[in-house]
C-alpha cells in the first residue's frame, strides 16, 4: 500500500447518518437482565422493519396455549450476518426452544436472543458468544 492510499485510508470518517436502527433501545421495553427459555411451536415469521417478528405458541403451566410474539434485530442486520428469513422460518411447525428477554410490562412479548431447532442447530445473537470468545 503506498503512502497516499495509506493516508486516505487513515482519514476515512464516519459514514452517512444511519436510519435503520434509529429506534428505541430494547431496554425501553424489555428486561435485558432477565433471559428466559421458552419451548413451543413457531407459527409465523414476519421479515419486516424495523425488527423481524416471530410468533410462537407456548403451552403454559395450566396446559393452555399462550400466543407469544418476539421481535429481534433488523432484517438488514440479519442479512449482513448471513441469516435470511428462510433460516428462521425453518422453525415454523417445529417444536423449538428460544431464549428471550421478556417485556417489562408482563405481556407475552419478548426480544428473541436465540432459537434452537429440533435437530439441534441454533442461531443466536452475538453478545453471549462474544463473551465466550473473549475467554482465554
Amino acid at each position, binding site marked *: 500500500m503506498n503512502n497516499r492510499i495509506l493516508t486516505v485510508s487513515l*482519514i*476515512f470518517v*464516519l459514514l452517512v447518518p444511519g*436510519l435503520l436502527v434509529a429506534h428505541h433501545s430494547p431496554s425501553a421495553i424489555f428486561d435485558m437482565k432477565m433471559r428466559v427459555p421458552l419451548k413451543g411451536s413457531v407459527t409465523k415469521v414476519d421479515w419486516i*422493519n424495523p425488527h423481524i417478528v416471530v410468533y410462537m405458541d407456548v403451552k403454559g403451566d395450566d396446559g393452555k396455549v399462550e400466543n407469544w410474539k418476539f421481535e429481534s434485530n433488523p432484517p438488514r442486520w440479519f442479512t449482513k450476518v448471513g441469516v435470511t428469513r428462510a*433460516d428462521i422460518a425453518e422453525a415454523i411447525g417445529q417444536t423449538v426452544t428460544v431464549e428471550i428477554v421478556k417485556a417489562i410490562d408482563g405481556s407475552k412479548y419478548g426480544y428473541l436472543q436465540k432459537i434452537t431447532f429440533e435437530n*439441534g*442447530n441454533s*442461531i443466536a445473537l452475538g453478545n453471549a458468544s462474544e463473551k465466550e470468545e473473549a475467554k482465554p
Partner: protein
Amino acid sequence: MKPTLVTRTVMLTAAVLVVFLSVTLVYSQTSGKTRRTADGHPDLSGTWAFGIDLPPTGVTKVVDGQVIRSRVDQSARHAINNDVPGALPWTKAPSYKPEFQEKVKHLEANESKLDGVFYCGRPGVPRIGSPRKIVQLPNEMIFLYEDISGDPYRIIPMDGRKHNTKANPSYYGDAVGHWEKDILVVDTTNFVEDTWFGEDGYFHSGKLHVIERLWLTPDNNLVYQVTVDDPGVLTGPWTNFPHLIKPSTELLEESPPCKDDDGSRLLNLDHHLQR
C-alpha cells in the same frame, strides 16, 4: 446456427472491450487518477458503501455441530476526521434561534416517541444520507437509496433549470444540480415540514434549504457533505462534517415493509443514536 466469422469477430471484439474497460476502471480506482465521464466531469456513478448504523454485534450459528460466527462488517465506518480534502469547515450542531431552543431540547429528549423515522417515517433530505447508488447522465443525476421507510430515489436535473416553485412540498424536495469545478452541488428546497434534518430534534420549517456537495478523492472514494439553512428557525447555515464513503460491490436490496407498534410499549426514552 453456427456463428459466422463476422459474428465471431464482433463477439471477440466485444469481449476484449469489456476486459479493457474493466481493467481501466480498476486501474483508475487504484491509480490515484480521478475517474471522469466523457464530458470531463468526475464520474460519481456506481454503488457506494452501506452507511447504515447497524448494531455492531454478530451472530453464532450452530449447524450440524459446527459453530459458525459472523459479525456485521463495520469496516467502512471510521471516526470523524477534519482532514478530508476539499471539505468545508463544519460545526457539531446547528444554531437555532433563541425562541426555538427549548423545543429542540424537548424533541431531542423525547426522540424515541416523537421522531417519525422511529415509526417508519420518511427521513427526507438530508437525513436520508448519501446515495447507495448514483447513476450519472449528462443532463441528470439519479440517486438511489435503501431505507426502512421504502427505497426512495431522487432525480436531479443538471440542465441549468431553476427550482420548480409550483411543485408540491415533498419529503425529498425539489432538487437541481450543477458542477462547481469537480464538485457536484445539489440544491434542494420545497420540503414538507414533518421531518427532522438530523437526530437530536433538528426540526425545520418550510423554508428549509439543503445543499449537498459530492466529490471524489484522488483514490475515487466519495465525499458527501451537507449544508442546511432554514431562515425560519436557524440563526444561519449549518454545515455538517464530511462523510467519506467507500465504493461497494454489494447490490442494493429491497427493504422489507416497515410496521412498528412499539410506541405504546415504551417504558423509558432510551434509544439508539444514528451516528
